[in-house]
């Protein structure tokens, strides 16, 4: 941030169009969301100011709680898959000598596919009519009593809608961790090996601690991403059956756009943003990362 140009007019010419667009496209809707969370409005007629009533109602709404806890389970599954599998595969790649960039390129492919397509792929894999991939594999390994319509069973639907989201982004975290791992000075791990550490110890005691800042950052992004999870659960089940795969975002969406409760929907949206900010603050506090 240490420029040298001082021409004020040119400065404004370069800065203002973008800032104005940003304020209008992102900042104004946020403010308006907060305002709407204090009103009751069904889409037509005048808005009615109701104070904190939407929030009071939210904290008494059992579906809200159900979607909150579903969202926590969704978050745990998604974060565990993205970070652990991403990290595991990145570590494996560091021991590879040939074709690394080809493997990386291919592994990343699910990240660039639209969620609608991923939704359709998994819908067909979970199905029983015709038998989908999951059920065929279960049947083949003798677990045919587990064969079921994964999206219709209230006991399996939540993991079933979480899994595709975890699966599709492992490649992105793999790329991030791989870049961090190979940027570690080779002398550091050589020194550890000279001191008698085996490969396993070098990995856990030296390499992983060294990329901890990257892990914390990606964890932050991964958690806030999961707190706003929407596309795949919405596309696969729309929160059903019942509310057994309802997440915060899908519930917000339904309240606003299916029931026309724009005020109540906004209150849930405000809750989602507050919750995301809280998660980031807590994570920074726990990891002791100073604000840079």
């Amino acid at each position, binding site marked *: *941030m*240490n*420029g*040298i*140009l*001082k021409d004020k007019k*040119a*400065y404004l*010419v*370069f*800065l203002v*169009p*973008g*800032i104005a*667009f*940003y304020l209008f*496209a*992102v900042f104004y809707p*946020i403010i*308006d*969301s907060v305002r*709407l969370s204090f009103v009751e409005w069904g889409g037509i007629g005048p808005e009615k100011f109701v104070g904190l009533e939407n929030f009071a109602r939210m904290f008494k709404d059992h579906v809200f709680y159900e979607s909150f806890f579903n969202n926590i389970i969704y978050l745990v599954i998604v974060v565990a898959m993205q970070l652990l599998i991403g990290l595991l*595969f990145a570590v*494996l*790649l560091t*021991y*590879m000598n040939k074709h690394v960039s080809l493997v990386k*390129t*291919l*592994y990343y*492919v699910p*990240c*660039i*596919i*639209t969620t*609608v*397509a991923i939704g*359709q792929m998994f819908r067909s*894999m979970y199905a029983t009519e*015709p038998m*989908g991939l999951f059920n065929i594999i279960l049947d083949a390994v003798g677990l045919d009593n587990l064969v079921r319509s994964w999206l219709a069973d209230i006991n399996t639907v939540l993991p079933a809608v979480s899994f595709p989201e975890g*699966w599709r982004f492992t490649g*992105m975290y793999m*790329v*991030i961790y791989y870049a961090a791992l190979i940027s570690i000075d080779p002398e550091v791990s050589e020194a550890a090996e000279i001191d008698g550490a085996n490969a396993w110890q070098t990995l856990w005691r030296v390499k992983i601690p060294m990329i901890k800042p*990257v892990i914390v950052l*990606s964890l*932050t*992004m*991964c958690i*806030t991403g999961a707190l*706003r999870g929407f596309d795949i659960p919405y*596309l696969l089940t729309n929160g059903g059956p019942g509310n057994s795969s309802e997440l915060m*975002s899908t519930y917000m969406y339904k309240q*606003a*756009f299916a029931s026309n409760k724009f005020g109540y929907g*906004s209150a849930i*949206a405000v809750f989602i*943003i507050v919750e995301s900010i809280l998660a*980031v603050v807590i994570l920074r506090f726990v990891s002791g990362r100073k604000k840079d």
Partner: protein
Amino acid sequence: MENKQYAAIKKIRKVVFALVIITFLIIQLYPIVWVFMASIKPTTELSARPFALPEAPTFENYRNIFAKGDIFLYLWNSVKVTFFSLILIMAFSSTMGYALSKFRFRINKKLYSFLTLGIMIPVQITLIPLFIFYSKMDILNTTFSLVLPQVGFAIPLSVMLFVNFYQFVPNELIEAATIDGCSPYGIFFKIMMPMAQNTFITIASMYSILIWNDFIFANTFISKSSAKTVAMGLKDYVGAFGNVDWGLTFAAIAVSILPPMIVYFLLNKHVTAGMAAGATKG
């Protein structure tokens, strides 16, 4: 003797290692390969032997979706949204990045922090207000209704990428150009823009994929069939619990994911670098 044994162990290890890597790759890629395979199977074969290699490959599914024609309209809508969004993203963020990193004004630091905060904002918070705004202005179902939020949410990360790059352009260079009589505008167009070519490519490649793939904005602001983007069109061949024509759906998926695939395989270093920056610099 011992050497031979050691060599054998080493070889086994190598094979096991390769198998592990291949297993990971199969888990990641099989669903996608399967879609392409399923799209060239006749409907009867698809339901009878869904996971076998296609026995009688056919392009009938493709012929059918092209004959139905809607997909061309959807593709065209996606192209429009992606194109206009990219132009605006690059115009706004390259100029803002220049103002924030090469001008000396005290407010810059605060503005930059305010902007980068935006990387963390969930898009859901804007859906209801924008929807209400669009319906009042009667501009639901327009290209603009999708371009506005796409550009807004792309600005923070794009500005950050430009600032990161511009900071490596030495101030002495700008000073020398100023002494030679070059205006701040000339410096931007003749020096900064050509040098930032890689940043432009990174942003264009990453956001062309992300915008092309968007579901949530399109699903909220588009209801007319004629304004649908290609991602939404994939749901055309599926009813809630009605009969899904899987053959057509898979062919449509294959068509719709082809453009992002091409961008990705041509520019994958740029795409992954941009996305990784988004996930770790928030």
